[in-house]
C-alpha cells in the first residue's frame, strides 16, 4: 500500500537556549506515521518526548527540520495558521484532562465544535454520540468536579475525537491516573483506534502502557534510539517499516 504517511518528520532539531548553555531537546529526529497507526513515544524523563509531541501538534516551533502533517508543512505556518490547522486536523488529549470547570461533560466535548462554528444543536448531538462511545452516556451533565479522574479523561478523549481529526496527540494521557484506571483508559483508546481507524501519537514513560501501541519509538537525549513493532500492528503497516 503506497499511501502517503499522515505524519512525516525529517531532520528535526529543537535547541533551547538557557543562559549561555544550549539544550538539545531534539537532535535530528526523523520518522513516518501511517494512517490508522497507534504510535507511542517512550523515554526517560527529559529525553525530549513532550518537545517532539508539541512540535508535531504545532504548539512549538522547531529550530530546524521538516514536519509534514496531512500534507501540510507545519514549520512554515504562523501562529494563526497553526491554530486553524489544529482546529481542523488535530485532536489533543492532555495529561491533566484540562476540562473547562464551568462546563458539564457534554459542553466540554462540544467545545472544539464551537470553535469550528458548528451550531449548538448539531454540536451537542455530536458530543452526545461520542460520549456514548466512551461509555459516559450517564454522565453527560456532570461537571468535571463531579467525575472521577478516569471519567474526566474519557471526556478528554471524547473531546479529541469529536472533531474527527486526522490525527490525535496525547501527552501522558494516563499520567494522572492509577494503574488500574490507566489500563482501562488505554483499552478504551486502543478499541476506538481500531474501530475508527484513527491515528494516534502518544507519549508515555510506562513501557507497559506503551505496549498498547502498534509501534514504540524510544527516545534518548533527543534522538530516536529504537523503533519496535508490537504484536498489535496490522500486517500491512508492519510491512512498510524501514
Amino acid at each position, binding site marked *: 500500500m503506497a499511501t502517503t504517511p499522515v505524519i512525516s518528520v525529517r531532520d528535526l532539531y529543537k535547541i533551547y537556549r538557557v543562559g549561555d548553555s544550549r539544550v538539545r531537546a531534539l537532535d535530528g529526529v526523523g520518522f513516518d506515521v501511517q494512517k490508522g497507526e497507534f504510535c507511542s513515544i517512550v523515554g526517560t524523563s527529559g529525553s525530549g518526548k513532550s518537545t517532539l509531541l508539541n512540535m508535531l501538534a504545532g*504548539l512549538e516551533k522547531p529550530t530546524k527540520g521538516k514536519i509534514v502533517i496531512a500534507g501540510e508543512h507545519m514549520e512554515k505556518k504562523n501562529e*494563526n495558521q497553526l491554530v486553524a490547522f*489544529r*482546529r481542523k486536523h488535530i485532536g489533543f488529549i*492532555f495529561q491533566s484532562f*484540562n476540562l473547562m470547570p464551568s462546563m458539564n461533560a457534554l459542553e466540554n466535548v462540544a467545545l*472544539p465544535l*464551537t470553535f*469550528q462554528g458548528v451550531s449548538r444543536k448539531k454540536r451537542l448531538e455530536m458530543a452526545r454520540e461520542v460520549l456514548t462511545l466512551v461509555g459516559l452516556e450517564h454522565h453527560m451533565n456532570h461537571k468535571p468536579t463531579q467525575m472521577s479522574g478516569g471519567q474526566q479523561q474519557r471526556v478528554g478523549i471524547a473531546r479529541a475525537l469529536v472533531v474527527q481529526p486526522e490525527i490525535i496527540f496525547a501527552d501522558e494521557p494516563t499520567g494522572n491516573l492509577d494503574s488500574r484506571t490507566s489500563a482501562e483508559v488505554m483499552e478504551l483508546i486502543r478499541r476506538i483506534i481500531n474501530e475508527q481507524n484513527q491515528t494516534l501519537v502518544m507519549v508515555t514513560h510506562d513501557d507497559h502502557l506503551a505496549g498498547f501501541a502498534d509501534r514504540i519509538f524510544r527516545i534518548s537525549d533527543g534522538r530516536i534510539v529504537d523503533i519496535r513493532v508490537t504484536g498489535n500492528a496490522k500486517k500491512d503497516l508492519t510491512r512498510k517499516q524501514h
Partner: protein
Amino acid sequence: MRFWDILLMSLSSLWKRRIRTILTVLGVVIGTASIVVMISLGLGLKRASLEEMEKYGSLKSIIVSEKDSYESDEEEGGRANKQTLVHLDDSVLESLRGIEHVEYVYPELEAEVMLLAGGYTCYTSVRGVPTKDMELIGLELAQGGLPEPGDTQLKFVYGNSVIGEFYNEKTGHGYWFDGTMAPVDLMNDPMICIFDAEKYYNFIWGNADESGNVAMPKKYMINAAGVMAGKVEDYNSNSNLIYCDLDLLKALLKKEFRGKAIPGQPTTISGKPTKEIYYTNLVVGVDDMKNVQNVQAQISQLGYSAESNAEWVESMQGQSNYIQLALGGIGAISLLVAAIGIANTMMMSIYERTKEIGIMKVLGCDMRNIQGMFLMEAGHIGLLGGLIGVALSYGLSFAINHFLGVSQMGIDLEGASSISYIPFWLSALSVAFSVAVGMAAGFFPSLRAMRLSPLAAIRNE
C-alpha cells in the same frame, strides 16, 4: 466561531466573576454619571442663557452704523477716507433693503436731551424712529400708546428706567444715588426739554459763546405718548431711551442747531455741519437667526459697521461650550479611573484564565475570537456601567432640579425651570462612549490574551 457563541462565552465569564464584575461596573457607573450630570448642568446653563437672551427679542436684527473714521483712516491710509466714509441716509437704507434675507430696514436718529420737571433734571438720549416703523421695535407699554401717524407735535415714549435718571437739581441726589424716586409723572407732568445742553450750561455758568451771547437755549414743552412697561431696575436695550417720531425730531434739531454742528452728527473737515442730518443707525431685520451673520458680513463688506446679537449669542454659546467642556472634563476623570479599573479587571481575568486560554488555543480557537471574547467582556462592563450610569444621571438630574430649586440658585430663570437638562442624544452618546472606553481599556489585555502561549495548557501547574 459564531458571534453568538463568543457573546455567550464572554457573558458567562462575566457572570462567573460577578462580584468583581459588579465592582468594576460600579466604577463605570460613577464615571458615566458624573460626566452626564456635569454636562447636563452645562446644557441647562446654556439653555437658560439662550432663553434669557431671547427675551430681548432682537436676536434677529443688525444695527448698522457709520464706520469709525479712525478705523478707516488706518485702513485707507488717511487720504481716501473722506470719499469712502459713507454717511447713513435713505439711499443706504434702500440698498440694505435689497440684500437677501432682509425683511425690513428702519432708520434711527439719536440725540441727547435734557429733561427738566419741577426741580428735577434728567440727561438722556432720545431716539427717533419713523412712526410707521415703530411697531417693529416691539415696545411694551404700560401707559399711553405709540405716536400716531399724522402727529404734528413731537411726542415721547419713555423707557421704564428713564424715571430713575432724574435727580434733584439742588442736592444732586437721584434714585440711583439714594433710592428716592423723583416725584415726576412722566405721562402727565409737563416736560421741559433742552436739546442744546452746551448752550444751557454756558448760560448757567455765564460763559459767552462764539458770537458773544449768553442766552438760554430754547425750551420745548413735549408731551408723553406712552411709558414702557417694567420696573425701574428692569434693564433691557430700550429701557434707558426715549422714543419719538424721527421726522419731527429731525425738523426740531435742524431748527435748534441752525448753523451749528449737532452733537453726534458728522461734520465736514473744517468742523462745519453737513447739509443734511444723517441717521445714527439703520436697523436691519433678518428673516432667521441663522442668516444674521451672513447678512451682517455683507453689510460690513459695504463699508459700514454692523453689529448684532448673533455675535453675542455666539460668544455666549462659545463660553458655555467652554464651561461644558470643563465640566465634562471633570466628569471624564472619574471615567478614566473607571477605565483603569476595567483594564485591571481584564488583566486579572486573563492571568486567572491563562490555562483556559491555552486550552482553547490547543483546541483550535481562533486568536481573533479569543481577542473578541475579551473585548466583548470589557465592552459589556462599559455597556452595563453606561446604562446604569445614565439611569442614575436621570435620577440625579431630577433631584438637582427638584431640590436645588431655581430660586436657591439666585438666578431669575422664568420659564427655564431646570438647572440640569439631559437631552436624549447625551444619554445615547454617553452609553456609546462608556462602551468605547470599556473596549479601549480592554484592548491591550485582549491582545495579551490573544498572544498567550498554548503551552500554558500543557504544563502542569
